[in-house]
């Protein structure tokens, strides 16, 4: 007898994607003569598949198995499930939720889908990521151009140079990632760990072999076309009607981390590493200094469009750079317990539209024009009529996200707040439930 299992509020397979944060689930039997005892457990469908854990309530500690009693009248029983940290999926459906009873077992294929270090991806993960990006770009005729158009000179203040920098970019990445997932739901926006060498990322099989040029003279330093292997999905990349990805690097991309500016600027403007980033401070007002370094330093470790705000989003590496910026924020939030948008230690805004915790954000709010001299908005709003892309795997944040809706990405304050993404090295810890 098959049991009906809902993941993320639906039996739709499109919702069967989990992070390390608890997702709401329900299970029921068809009306029967008596109650049915079931045990939930996780089983890998492939040797390197994902694993999940179970929660009786969203604040209880997780367990590897969960015993439930399904009422005879067919009423559903709630439970929560989440990916087991350290065991994310590699492929769609490589993790099975198994419901065992005296009558047999029902299995539901799932994916523990999180953003990973791009330098360590398996080839098939890399290739499906690239294929999705290729289709999103669609030779210059795809939806990607809208995302490029969101990050231009006129929108610079909407996204940068203030406390809204991190929430705006989290929303931006989430929107783009969900568009990628409309193409391939198994894809995540993997990150470039810029404070470590990434030889498998900056190569002809991934984001392009990037010529090294000196930071200092002599040598030309503007961007040059990166090299891809023949037939690479991104070899036909087009933005603003122009083919190719222009990028040069001021470091050896095979052996060195992104440096920032070291040899020419006095004092140097180095890219600070993860530990130093986390050490910037324990409150948001201190932590957000990371917009300068490592964020800005990562951008200017290159020549080419990625090194300037108006043109950076032409380069697909930009999105992986920002995925790492966002990961650092998520990691800091976990370590410092900063997930409450009402707490200034978690987010402290400023008095300008798009920067207060309750404000909606351009372009998703479709607000344009110079409303007041103190609160100008760009004269355009790419995709503003659509709002932020929805996902069957998460209820939040809706089509017009607020700044505050980006703060509790794992749903610590309310499980309904979780945004449906996570990082391979950022665990979930219950917000105060008992820990074994």
């Amino acid at each position: 007898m098959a049991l009906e299992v809902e993941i993320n509020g639906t039996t739709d397979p499109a919702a069967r994607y989990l992070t390390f944060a608890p997702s709401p689930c329900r299970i029921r039997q068809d009306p029967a003569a008596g109650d049915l005892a079931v045990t939930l457990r996780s089983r890998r469908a492939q040797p390197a598949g994902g694993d999940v854990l179970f929660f009786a309530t969203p604040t209880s500690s997780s367990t590897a198995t969960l015993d439930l009693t399904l009422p005879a009248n067919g009423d559903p029983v709630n439970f929560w499930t989440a990916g087991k940290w350290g065991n994310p999926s590699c492929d769609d459906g490589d993790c099975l939720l198994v419901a065992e009873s005296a009558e047999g077992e029902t299995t539901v294929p799932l994916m523990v889908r999180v953003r990973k270090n791009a330098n360590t991806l398996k080839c098939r993960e890399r290739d499906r990521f690239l294929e999705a990006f290729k289709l999103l770009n669609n030779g210059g005729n795809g939806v990607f151009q809208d995302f490029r158009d969101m990050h231009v000179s006129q929108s610079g203040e909407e996204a940068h140079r203030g406390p809204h920098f991190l929430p705006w970019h989290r929303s931006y990445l989430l929107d783009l990632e969900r568009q990628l997932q409309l193409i391939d739901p198994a894809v995540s926006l993997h990150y470039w760990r810029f404070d470590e060498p990434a030889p498998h990322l900056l190569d002809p099989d991934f984001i392009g072999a990037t010529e090294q040029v000196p930071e200092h003279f002599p040598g030309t330093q503007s961007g040059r076309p990166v090299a891809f292997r023949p037939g690479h999905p991104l070899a036909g990349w087009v933005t603003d009607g122009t083919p190719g990805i222009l990028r040069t690097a001021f470091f050896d991309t095979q052996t060195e981390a992104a440096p920032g500016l070291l040899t020419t600027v006095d004092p140097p403007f180095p890219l600070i590493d993860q530990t130093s980033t986390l050490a910037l401070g324990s409150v948001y007002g201190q932590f957000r200094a990371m917009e300068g370094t490592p964020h800005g330093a990562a951008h200017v470790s290159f020549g080419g469009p990625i090194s300037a705000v108006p043109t950076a989003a032409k380069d697909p590496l930009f999105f992986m750079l920002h995925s790492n910026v966002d990961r650092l924020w998520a990691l800091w939030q976990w370590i410092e317990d900063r997930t409450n948008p009402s707490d200034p230690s978690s987010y402290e805004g400023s008095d300008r539209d798009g920067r207060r915790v309750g404000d909606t954000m351009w372009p998703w709010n479709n607000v344009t024009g110079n409303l007041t001299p103190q609160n100008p908005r760009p004269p355009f709003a790419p995709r503003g009529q659509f709002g932020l892309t929805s996902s069957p795997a998460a209820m939040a944040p809706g089509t017009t996200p607020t700044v505050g809706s980006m703060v509790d990405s794992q749903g610590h304050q309310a499980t309904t707040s979780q945004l449906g993404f996570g990082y391979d090295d950022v665990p979930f810890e219950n917000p105060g439930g008992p820990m074994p």
Partner: protein
Amino acid sequence: MSNEEYYQRIREYRKKIELERDAARAAAEAAPAEVAADPVELALTRLADPEETREARAASLQHLKALSFSSETFSDWLPRFLEGLRSASRSDHAGLRELAFEALIAYGSREDQQSLIDGLADPEAALVSPAVALRLLSQDPHAPAREVARSLADTATDPETRLESLRVLASDPESVDRFAGILADPGEATDARTLAATALGSLDRARLRSVAAEMEQATEAVSEAREDVDVDVEAHLNSLLDLPE
């Protein structure tokens, strides 16, 4: 792994990060990083000063680019930044000029786009090499560079200059026939043919499919051993043909 072991692992991971963080904080407090009193003002002054060394001006340019990502007063100093870039773009050093033009074009300076175009028409007036000028101009499809690019695509003897002129024309609907011809010509260089394929796919995908079909037939008719096939072009074409209409 038991539940207890799982949570112990998380606790140990947390502890490791916290220890490293605390050590970094202590080190930063013990030896604070040197910060210039007003790094923006210092860099703006140096960038704009033609008496400064090219190294100092280039360093200031890079520093200002880095600060542009986070400086909350950026909109206030942007005009001076652009003035400094314009000054640097007229310096005696080619590398500094190239850096400056790259930034000016990124910020959408029409005046400096025209300077590059003027340099393409009159080499005596050129401030950067033709290939660099074309590559920078290609980043804006609205730059009025198509006429000069068409001329150079026909006449340039330097392969890099010709390739970059084709890049400028990639958004030009009047260049569809040109790209179709380059793609179908096995005598053209691989990089020109692959760029032509990409441009054609962006401008007129149906035409790309038509050219690809003709190339397939021509290959089958001429060479069973496929010795004349440029496999790199073929691989690129196959990737583009996967794209939807």
